[in-house]
């Protein structure tokens, strides 16, 4: 019983570390890709159309949340053989 739990714990930790590595790679790519592309446009929008910027800001953070949730859920499922929790 204890041995099974330990084995399961080790497997979970291993999967978590792999997730972290994959996730870090995705985040690094994100920094260089999305932020460099979005940055100048958002600054311009913030200076010229503050109300539009406010709406775009909230849409961006919600959009990113939905996207990242889907990615992390997908990663969890992939690494844990169909289980996401």
């Amino acid at each position: 019983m204890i041995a099974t739990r330990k084995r399961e714990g080790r497997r979970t930790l291993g999967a978590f570390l792999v997730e972290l590595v994959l996730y870090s790679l995705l985040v690094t790519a994100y920094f260089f890709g999305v932020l460099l592309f979005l940055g100048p446009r958002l600054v311009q929008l913030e200076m010229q159309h503050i109300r539009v910027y406010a709406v775009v800001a909230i849409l961006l953070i919600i959009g990113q949340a939905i996207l990242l949730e889907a990615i992390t859920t997908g990663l969890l499922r992939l690494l844990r053989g169909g289980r996401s929790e």
Partner: protein
Amino acid sequence: MYFPISHSHINPIYLVVTGFVIGVLGGFFGVGGSFIAGPALRAMGLDWNFAVGTDLAHIVGKSVVAAKRHRALGNVDLRLGLIMTIGTIGGAEIGAQLIQALKRAGNVNFIVSVVSIAVYLSISTFMIWESWRTLAKSNRSDLRKQSGTAKIKEDQSAFMHVTKALQRLRIWPMIRLPTSGVTISFWIIVLVSFIGGLFSGFLGGGAGYIRMPSLVYVLGIPTHLAVGTDLFEIIISAGYGTLTHAIKGNVDILIALVMHTGAAIGAQIGAIATQYFAGPKIRLAFVPLPLIGAAIVIYTLLSGHKL
């Protein structure tokens, strides 16, 4: 890394790690984590107005992730969350107006600090007493032998007699909440959400530190559902705050987006972790959070400068 909207240089790794820590706390306890995120952003050299607005934007993203995960686990009462929206927005607006009135009177910092210390300390003291008593009672009735997620979610509270009395108040219209297994007056729900919104507008952040305990003790919502539903409510209150702050030029969305990459994974871990703890244990573990908030405010009051 240079963030041109707020004209600040911040290490993105620091932002991601801070987001991750706040994400875990938020997913597990159903709080926004503004009492940690605000000072953390301030410590990175961000102006206070940007720290507050940017933190709110990051809270929205993190709460979307955590609430989605809690919904998948069956921990969100959508009907309750939607009814609460009315009180939350109304309360947030009045809280913000109250701040403006105190600003005009010239004593906003002192009053907000004293109120927040009193609120944080009261919540912590009450929750220590209640969860301790509930856990002691559970141990006496030998509930430790029970195991499994379903039994973990069966909640108990030493304050249940007061909650039951509130549920017996028949003030029309009565609302049935099948997900939470509760029937309660519409007006009590609105009052609870109004108070949460009021604190959100008055003290800043999502006010999960007051809404989550209120959902458990006043409405009688099981702790796991209270955590998930509170996160849903934080999306609305912090979303509203983000819009108003962004219009005032207080949101650097690029910082919030970077911070959120860490929070997204942290929030999922926190949400999944709730499945392994019983309600009273989650409530007992919640106690240090308002105490950290109180310590930050006391430090600010005594030192004269914000963290």
